């Protein structure tokens, strides 16, 4: 307890996880609304590449592309979500290392891991907002109609992208250990295209990969109009299992990498 000149005393109250959640999410909110250039830039780039894909594809493939446009839009929507969540979390961890704020978090009562997890949630919400806008423009641009049951789409897409969040954590952890590898790990986002278009129904083992099973369910939800409760219980259980598994795995890699970085003395090096 300290006292100021007027005799008024500070009685410091402890902060628990409720205050931590509020502080981290509020920080992310402030950065998002105060500096919208990154989000706008991401939207412009996403729409530009979709425009090239759509108009260029239509010139080359003609009707073949138009016939499969619904699947392409759903896949592209999921890809923008995945890239947004993955790069946001992995780049953010890299930035925290560079700023010296990761080291400050490490020695706090909460540590950095719960903060990183909360940041991941905030990035997910942010990415949903920007990807929803991209989706709306794609639908208008192509004159396509999709089934957009909000509960189904948000639930399936969130659980699908959570596995990518796990990959983001793992990539962030590896970046903490091996700084130069970080930039190369950004290339992984192009691999998401393969995962999103993986033949989950034909090659059943691919359903265990991140994105693949969720992508197939999202196609059914948005193209065929299947509602959340119409999916089979094993299909939903697998979706949840893959999400939790990759998130837990990524979180574990991040924790192990951070501990290793402390052992090697490279936690704050950049």
């Amino acid at each position, binding site marked *: *307890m*300290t006292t*100021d000149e007027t005799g*008024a005393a*500070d*009685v*410091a*109250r*402890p*902060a*628990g*996880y409720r*205050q*931590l959640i*509020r*502080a981290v999410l509020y*920080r992310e909110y*402030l*950065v998002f609304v*105060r*500096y919208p250039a990154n989000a706008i830039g991401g939207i412009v780039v996403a729409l530009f590449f979709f425009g090239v894909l759509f108009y260029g594809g239509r010139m080359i493939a003609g009707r073949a592309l138009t016939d499969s446009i619904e699947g392409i839009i759903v896949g592209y929507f999921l890809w923008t979500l995945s890239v947004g969540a993955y790069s946001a979390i992995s780049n953010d961890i890299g930035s925290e290392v560079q*700023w*010296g*704020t990761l*080291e*400050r*978090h*490490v*020695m*706090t*009562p*909460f*540590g950095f891991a719960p*903060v990183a997890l909360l940041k991941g949630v905030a990035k997910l919400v942010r990415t949903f907002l920007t990807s929803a806008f991209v989706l709306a423009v794609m639908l208008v641009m192509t004159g396509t109609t999709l089934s957009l049951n909000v509960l189904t789409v948000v639930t399936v897409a969130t659980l699908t992208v959570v596995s990518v969040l796990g990959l983001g954590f793992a990539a962030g952890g590896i970046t903490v250990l091996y700084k130069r590898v970080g930039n190369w790990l950004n290339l992984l986002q192009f691999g998401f295209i393969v995962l999103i278009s993986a033949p989950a129904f034909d090659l059943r083992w691919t359903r265990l990969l991140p994105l693949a099973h969720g992508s197939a369910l999202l196609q059914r939800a948005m193209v065929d109009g299947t509602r959340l409760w119409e999916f089979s219980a094993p299909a939903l259980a697998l979706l949840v299992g893959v999400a939790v598994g990759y998130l837990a795995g990524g979180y574990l890699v991040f924790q192990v990498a951070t*501990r290793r970085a*402390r*052992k*090697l*003395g490279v*936690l*704050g090096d950049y």
Partner: protein
Amino acid sequence: MTASERVVEETVESRSDASTGEPAVAIDGLRKTFGSGPEAVTAVDGVSVGIERGSVVGLLGPNGAGKTTLIKSVLGMVVPDEGDVHIGGVDARASPRAAYADVDAMLEGARNDYWRLTVRENLRYFATISGVDPDSVAARHDRLLDRLDLTAKADVAVRDLSRGMKQKVSLASVLAGGASVVFLDEPTLGLDVESSRTLQRELRRLVAEEDLTVILSSHDMDVVERVCDRVIIMADGRVVADDSVDALLGVDDTHRLELTSADFDGDLLAALSQRAAVVDTEGLDRGGRVAVDADSDDLYSLMGALEDRGVTLESVQSVDRDLEAAFVDLTGTEGADP
């Protein structure tokens, strides 16, 4: 109540009653080696140091002396190979969260805070992650901003501030949660003389008002000399000196003087060099120069002898020993680098 909330609550309570008699920081036999085999480098080699509450301790040493590794090992950012660290009596290895909850650090060459947030938002954020509800220390934040002359900039994004202001914000955010043990690695790096002096003055004032324990590493020996009570000098991973600033500066009743005169010929210089107080003699084109380390009695005796010889002094220069001289003597290195 969760385990983390219990740790935080205990921490807040311990901040209210820091007078437990334990040293603020106790380091015992700390050792850290990077790499293995012939390439291995021992950055910290069996360092044992105790730091009393309310003291300001400077950490000096040449480049690669192991200062940053020592600080980071104490803070748990680097895992040491051997040795123990106790903070406020709590074993940092066994109970890191509890031990570090009353500690914060401003690290060399890093931003340490979020430049896209305003000054006040940074203070609130870092208070929260250090386990303190920011609403409960709002008055403290106002006081800190006032002390560091940041009140007018409280709602300005840190990225829009000058470098000196950014350093002050770093310091304020480190103190925002009420940590009583603070590590400052190069707090004045890159600041102009004016900003550096202001920060030093405010730091000294905050130390007194907030009863802080500060461990400060700086390449600027003036900063260490002005701000610190005690100095630890490291070389090759070891502590080569650990004493009060006054003791290292040789502050006693002896004075180092340089006397120059055209009357100092070879014979006289030879005679003077026999005196215990004379540490050096040098012949010049015209006369010579004599350096003496003398207390009052030595000085009166020497002056009497010079008067008897009819010597006219051209200059009498007082040469104060500074920390840099002490540092060079102890490490054999010109200048310090953190």
